């Protein structure tokens, strides 16, 4: 079973359906037992960083997520879910994240419009199993105002150009993050979700 973590933010049905469509038994849950028993964890993301991390703390599942990460269980963070992996975010103040990846979450600044909304093309930073079958110039759908600045850019598998290098697909061992929405990225999104599935087998 894949545990899709429900921390009270928005609609998780689309992510749930995407997991079902690639053949996973998925469960939307915030229970420690479910998370511990799962084969993999998905941390979806809608809304603001502060509210999300507060909810995770209040529900008492931060330590549980961290322990599962440490034990090597595959965790996929989507959009805000990816941002939550990092040490700190500057969205609406300064807030500590889960700290399972090193780096910070900062706002786009510059002349380009915010949010970074729409389909942007992917640029390959390095080869990885998670990005098998993806070519440069494949497009995925983004919608976000903050982006991650990893301490080690080698953790970035794919990035996009939006005035700056925007990490799109991150992987460090069992920790995987997608800044875009794979469940909304058509064929390319499906390829990436299938690659995620292959990693768990």
């Amino acid at each position, binding site marked *: 079973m894949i545990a899709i973590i429900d921390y009270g933010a*928005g*609609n998780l*049905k*689309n992510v749930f*359906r*995407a997991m079902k469509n690639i053949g996973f038994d998925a469960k939307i849950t915030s229970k420690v037992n479910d998370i511990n028993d799962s084969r993999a964890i998905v941390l979806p993301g*809608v*809304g*603001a960083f502060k509210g999300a991390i507060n909810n995770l703390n209040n529900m008492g599942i931060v330590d549980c997520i961290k322990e599962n990460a440490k034990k090597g269980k595959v965790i996929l963070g989507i959009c805000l879910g990816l941002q939550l992996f990092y040490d700190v975010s500057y969205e609406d103040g300064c807030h500590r994240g889960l700290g399972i990846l090193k780096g910070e979450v900062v706002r786009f600044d510059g002349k380009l*419009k*915010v*949010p*970074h*909304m*729409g*389909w*942007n*093309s992917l640029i390959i930073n390095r080869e990885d199993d998670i990005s098998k079958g993806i070519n440069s110039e494949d*497009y995925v*759908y983004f*919608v*976000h*105002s903050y982006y991650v600045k990893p301490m080690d850019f080698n953790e970035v598998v794919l990035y*996009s*150009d*939006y005035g700056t290098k925007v990490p799109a697909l991150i992987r460090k061992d069992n920790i995987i993050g997608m800044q875009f*929405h794979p*469940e*909304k*990225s*058509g*064929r390319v*999104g*499906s390829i990436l979700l299938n690659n995620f599935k292959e990693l768990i087998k």
Partner: protein
Amino acid sequence: MLAKRIISCLDVKDGRVVKGKRFNDLTDVDDPVNLAVFYNNEGADELVFYDITASFEKRNIFFNVVEKIAESINIPFTVGGGIKTLEDFRTALLKGADKVSINSAAVRNPEIIKSAAKKFGSQCVVLSMDVKKTDSGNYKVYIDGGRVETDFYALEWAKLGESLGAGEIVLNSIDCDGIKNGYDYEITSLISENVNIPVVASGGAGNMEHFEKVFKYGKADAALSASIFHYGDIKINDLKEYLYCKGVNIRRV
């Protein structure tokens, strides 16, 4: 690079797709879920569904359609029409919409933009505005399907909407809607260059060149059309190929 988006829009009445000229003369066209899947496969970057059902009792028909659409496609879509309250936002999002657009109700109560952005995030709050050029040459905002002129100037309202937390603007030209003579490039570029959120041009597309122009001269981030796509005048695939050749950054599928 971020691609310019092609958006197909579907007006839904009592659970069926319709399209009118200048907001009048509606004719029944097709089933919304079928069309959604069709556009999803044809390479549309996004879809918009406006509920133009008059009676309140029939609203749940629309939301059931929204749920079916969410189950059937894997591209983003916006829901609008008759959205008035935070509860409407919540219902649309829970049924699977990615964004919710608000129009007349936001003019009547601009604070709804702020509270929706705070509650659900700016990324899902779309400010849809109907504008019309007045005799003095200024653009004013109209509400209630283009019937009622408001005190707002178009740019003033767009900027206010942005400052309240809207994440995107859909700019509908009442003068151009359904005429197929091209988008209103003047107001589109004025708004797009003076706000820092994406602007979707709407109303007036009649051929492929109109799309090219609205991106190049109108500075639009996305272009929306309805009838031109579902009466088959233009195929989205062909349009994208055309724009690509014209040097517009586009997602080809």
